[in-house]
């Protein structure tokens, strides 16, 4: 049963005296709010899906004459598509918040809840977009993956990694004037370490030979560090 409450449902955040529980509750309500907003203005969501679809199709048309794509190139191209999708999807997470609405959150919840909720929301959104991109991509360009389960896990980790490293960047870029050009400039270098580990882990899953989980551990470590730094730094950013 879904109960439709107005967007102002954060008003209903019940208060407890335990800070950790309160934080989780705030994150939960903020995420609900983000999903509800996304669902109500479906233009943005449809736009992102079309973006994924047309990018995949452009790649298909560009590579179809070359015959079957070799596996490393297939992998690299998929991750480039996912990277650009992520940059575009995450960029709007803070741009869509008006100044007044941010002030409203400031009065109701703590900043840590805002950034963690945005990271979680972006991770789920990117996971959905990533799976759609992976499906469409393997539909038109073939699927040479030996271990699909492991590869899907890497895509999920990729969504988490892109979301955690790009969310704070989008918060920073939203404060500047030319935020649309600033987002890739700030985001690409920061995301490259994660991207390199992702490509390595994905290549391992693709070949199905090397079972070393080292890139996965590296990814988890990098994600943890980036989330921790975002958690610590966002309270300083949001009041400006």
């Amino acid at each position: 049963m879904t109960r439709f409450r107005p967007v102002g449902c954060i008003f209903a955040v019940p208060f407890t005296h335990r800070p950790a529980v309160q934080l989780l509750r705030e994150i939960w309500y903020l995420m609900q709010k983000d999903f509800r907003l996304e669902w109500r203005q479906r233009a943005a969501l449809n736009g992102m899906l079309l973006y994924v679809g047309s990018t995949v199709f452009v790649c298909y048309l560009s590579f179809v004459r070359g015959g079957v794509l070799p596996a490393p190139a297939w992998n690299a191209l998929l991750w480039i598509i996912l990277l650009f999708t992520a940059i575009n999807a995450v960029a709007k997470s803070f741009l869509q918040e008006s100044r007044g609405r941010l002030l409203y959150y400031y009065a109701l919840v703590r900043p840590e809840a805002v950034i963690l909720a945005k990271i979680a929301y972006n991770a789920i959104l990117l996971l959905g977009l990533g799976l759609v991109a992976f499906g469409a991509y393997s539909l038109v360009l073939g699927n040479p993956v030996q271990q699909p389960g492991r590869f899907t896990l890497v895509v999920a980790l990729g969504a988490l990694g892109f979301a955690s490293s790009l969310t704070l960047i989008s918060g920073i870029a939203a404060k500047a004037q030319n935020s649309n050009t600033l987002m890739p400039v700030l985001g690409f270098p920061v995301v490259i370490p994660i991207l390199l580990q992702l490509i390595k882990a994905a290549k391992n899953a693709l070949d199905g030979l090397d079972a070393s989980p080292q890139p996965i551990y590296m990814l988890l470590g990098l994600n943890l560090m980036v989330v921790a730094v975002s958690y610590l730094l966002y309270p300083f950013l949001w009041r400006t």
Partner: protein
Amino acid sequence: MKNWWKVLAAVLLLYTVVMGLLGPAPRLPILNETIRNLYFHVPMWFGMTIILTASAVNSARYLYKPSYRLDVLAYESAQTGILMAVLGLATGSLWARFTWGTWWTSDPRLNGAAIAVLIYGAYLVLRSSITDEQQSARIGAVYNIFAYCAAIPLLFILPRLTDSLHPGAGGNPGFSKYDLDNNMRLVFYPAIIGWTLLGVWITQVAVRFTLVKHKLYEKQLA
């Protein structure tokens, strides 16, 4: 004497240049005389790491207690750090030309260094694209700390996990008994201190210049 460390920097750098170019060095195949690059290339990265750490620390201090001086310290230190990183890339590239036979090659350590320079380049772009002074300082400080945390694994953790052409790769941090003997240590350690002090000196001059400009500007406004 208040400025003893500036004298020390000058003496150490003079010693580094003279002894580095004329002093004894082991005769090794392929490396030959390029081994002397150790006195110029490696201290650049040492100095860069120390100065960028200072920049991140000043940014953190700014966030806890905002003041114009701390912001200028963080910004100018980052600029000196970038200068040293670019010089480190240039000296490394020159060395690679004569030992590996190419200016640049796809190696984890080289790529990590290049990306770290890109990350800090983005910091400069961010600073110049926000016109409001306090906003620029605050947001710049947040990004600076984020950039530091992203750059350190690139330079020090990721390259050590894979094989690399770069000397000191494959698990061990840098010095090995094959390419560093005691004669070289006598020049190498002073070189690190000398170049780092020079970086601090450059930063100090730049910080003072900015502060004086700011003071003059305020006087004109008044």
